[in-house]
C-alpha cells in the first residue's frame, strides 16, 4: 500500500492526540519547511533516514531525442536523496 499524506496525518493524530485538521496543518507545514529550505539551497539532513541535497548541475550539451537536434542544456539545480546506512539495512531486512 502506498503511503500518502492522509496516512501520515492519521499517525500524527493518533500519536499526539490533536484534532485531524490541526494534524493536517502541522504535517503540511513540516513538508513546506523542508521544501523552502531546499529552495533556499540548503541541504536537509535527517539522521537515521537520509539527506536531501541541492546539487548544482553545470551547462551541458544535450540532444532532442525526437528530432536529433543538438542543444545546450542550461545550468540548473536539482534535489538528490541519499539514504542513511541504517535505513538501507532496514530496507534490506538486516
Amino acid at each position, binding site marked *: 500500500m*502506498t503511503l500518502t499524506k492522509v496516512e501520515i496525518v492519521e499517525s500524527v493524530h493518533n*500519536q499526539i492526540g490533536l484534532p485531524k485538521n490541526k494534524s493536517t496543518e502541522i504535517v503540511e507545514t513540516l513538508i513546506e519547511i523542508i521544501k523552502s529550505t531546499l*529552495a533556499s539551497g*540548503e541541504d*536537509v539532513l535527517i539522521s537515521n533516514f537520509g539527506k536531501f541535497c541541492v546539487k548544482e548541475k553545470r551547462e551541458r550539451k544535450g540532444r532532442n531525442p525526437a528530432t536529433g537536434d543538438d542543444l545546450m542544456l542550461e545550468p540548473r539545480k536539482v*534535489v538528490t536523496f541519499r539514504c542513511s546506512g541504517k535505513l*538501507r539495512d532496514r*530496507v534490506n531486512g538486516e
Partner: protein
Amino acid sequence: MNRSDLINSLKDKVALSRKDAGKVVDTFFDALKETLSKSDRVEIRGFGSFSVKNYKPYVGRNPKTGEKINVTSKKLPFFKVGKELKEMVDKS
C-alpha cells in the same frame, strides 16, 4: 538543516511544544521508514515520491587494487523529486 533545526522551525510555526514537535517529526519519518522497509511506495504531492529499487548482483572491482569483488543483490530507496519542489529549487 538537521532534525533538531527542523523541530525548532516547526514548533515556532504551528505553536507546539518542543516535545510534541519532536514527536511529529519522528512520526513522519518513522512512517516513511516503516513503509520503505516493506518495499512499499510513499507519495507526497508537491514534494516527491519514494520507492524501493532492486539492484542485481554484479562483479565489481576495488578501484585501488583492481581486485574483483562480488557485489550481492540489494535494495535501495529511491527518491523522485516532485514537480513543484523541482521548480522551486531550480528557480531560486
